[in-house]
């Protein structure tokens, strides 16, 4: 059942179109990813869903509410983790949670919430003394303090080290398992692939695809990559002429050949005919990265 419905959303800043006709639905109880490069319009999209911005066109329903008209009611059902939002330097973690809990009619027990987030021993610590990962967890705690039905988490793991990132991921899964619908905004492919039930791919303000991670990958299925270092100079044209090959790229001493069918055999035959050996040969199957390139025509992270 859809808990969020976005239809033909349009948002313009100073004649620059940030979001251009985006539509999607989020089902109750899923982790829904919004994936795209920086500046693609992801944050603007969720800010319209949160009621922080008025759309210039289209309609949005969140749990049956209009985010602008029913702002007050929506606030009690939607928890938001904002990109780059801090707390006063000297506020203690416990004080912040206690304060934000007082904003809601039926808040969660903040001590229990802190314990669940692994911050039980930080209740008396000042915000400025927390590490990046701890600040991020406080931010998640504040998004969950009002016992929301839906949590919107924007760029959750940006700036975290790999370990903190993994910890945060399992946290998001816990939140979903507790029955909260999660909307996750990210530009990390790995994060989207690991966490999301479904992903909306957004590029340059437009919706490119909505599918499960596996569904997105299957759109480029059959595509593979062969990576190797030729032992002697090789005319790239020889490879490009092959029917199996769709793309050849030179990365330093390495060649990366993308294609379909019996790609490996076709490539090695050409090499054998020219008496070149393929050193450090590797074959890779298509992943979400490739799906993204196929869908948007470019890589997510340059």
């Amino acid at each position, binding site marked *: 059942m859809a808990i969020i419905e976005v239809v033909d959303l349009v948002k313009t800043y100073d004649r620059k179109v940030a979001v251009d006709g985006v539509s999607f639905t989020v089902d109750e109880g899923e982790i829904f990813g919004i994936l795209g490069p920086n500046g693609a319009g992801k944050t603007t999209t969720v800010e319209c869903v*949160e009621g*922080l911005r008025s759309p210039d066109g289209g309609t949005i329903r969140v749990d049956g509410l209009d985010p602008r008209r029913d702002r*007050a009611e929506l*606030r*009690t059902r*939607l*928890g*938001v983790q*904002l990109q*780059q*939002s*801090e*707390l*006063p330097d*000297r*506020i203690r973690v416990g*004080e912040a949670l*206690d*304060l*934000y809990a*007082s*904003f*809601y009619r039926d808040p969660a027990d903040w001590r229990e919430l802190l314990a669940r987030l692994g911050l039980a021993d930080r209740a008396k610590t000042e915000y400025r003394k927390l590490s990046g990962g701890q600040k991020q967890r406080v931010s998640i705690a*504040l998004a969950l303090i*009002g016992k929301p039905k839906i949590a919107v988490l924007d760029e959750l793991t940006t700036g975290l080290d790999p370990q903190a990132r993994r910890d945060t991921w399992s946290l998001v899964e816990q939140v979903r398992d507790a029955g909260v619908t999660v909307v996750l905004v990210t530009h990390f492919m790995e994060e989207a692939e690991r966490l999301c039930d479904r992903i909306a791919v957004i590029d340059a303000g437009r919706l490119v695809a909505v599918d499960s991670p596996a569904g997105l990958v299957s759109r480029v299925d059959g595509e593979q990559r062969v990576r190797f270092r030729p032992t002697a100079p090789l005319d790239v044209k020889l490879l490009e002429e092959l029917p199996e090959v769709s793309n050849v790229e030179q990365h330093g001493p390495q060649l990366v050949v993308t294609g379909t069918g019996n790609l490996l055999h076709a490539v090695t035959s050409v090499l054998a005919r020219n008496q070149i050996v393929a050193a450090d040969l590797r074959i890779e199957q298509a992943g979400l990265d490739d799906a993204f390139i196929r869908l948007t025509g470019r890589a997510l992270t340059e």
Partner: protein
Amino acid sequence: MLKIVNTEWKLFLREPSMVVFAVLFPAILLLVLGAIPALRTPDPNFDNQRFIDAFMSSLVVTALAFLGLNKLPATVATYREKGVLRRFSTTPVHPARLLVAQVLVNLIAGVISIVLLMVVGRAVFDIDLPHHPLWFLVTFLLGMLSLSAIGLLVAAWAPNARSAGGWATVVFMLVMFFGGVYLPRFLLPDFLNVIGAYLPPGVEALQQSWLGAAPDPVHLGVLALVTVAAGTVAAKSFRWE
């Protein structure tokens, strides 16, 4: 609301420099000046009052100016820059409450600062308590609110916390100058003192309600007008992010 004020009050107490300047500084300055014998001898320049008697209103101005024009715009602009206000706007509570809480915290700090000044003045230098306590309270409130409104206006218009600090400092210096803090008011030309009487936070009305006759209602009216005008413009033009 009480909880927000309580939290902001705790945060205020954790900034030692703010507490020293806004709450303790006026009383300390009084002690320092009062230690100079010439300044506690009756002087014909002040109708045979002592310098320290005549300087009390200027000391009140320092406290009010610090709170309204230094602490308030700096805190509010920082809260906006760090996204504290934005985070508030994702909760059922409107971020305007945070600004109201700031002004209330300043009022409490201002009261403490001035009570401390009165106690020290009375106990150490035998300076009279305000002759017109009610008028003094009204003047103090109007003075505090008018400066707070200007402080919020600065925070509303400044693009970021740094420029808010810069702009507020300019207004702060003017208020301190016209309030007779840098140069005692008897040294200022008459026309500057006349201007100063109308400017927030109403140094003349503070002095009059403390140790003179009752304050001029016109001065108080101007303070009220400034409060309403600056407050309205600040509220209308305030950016929450």
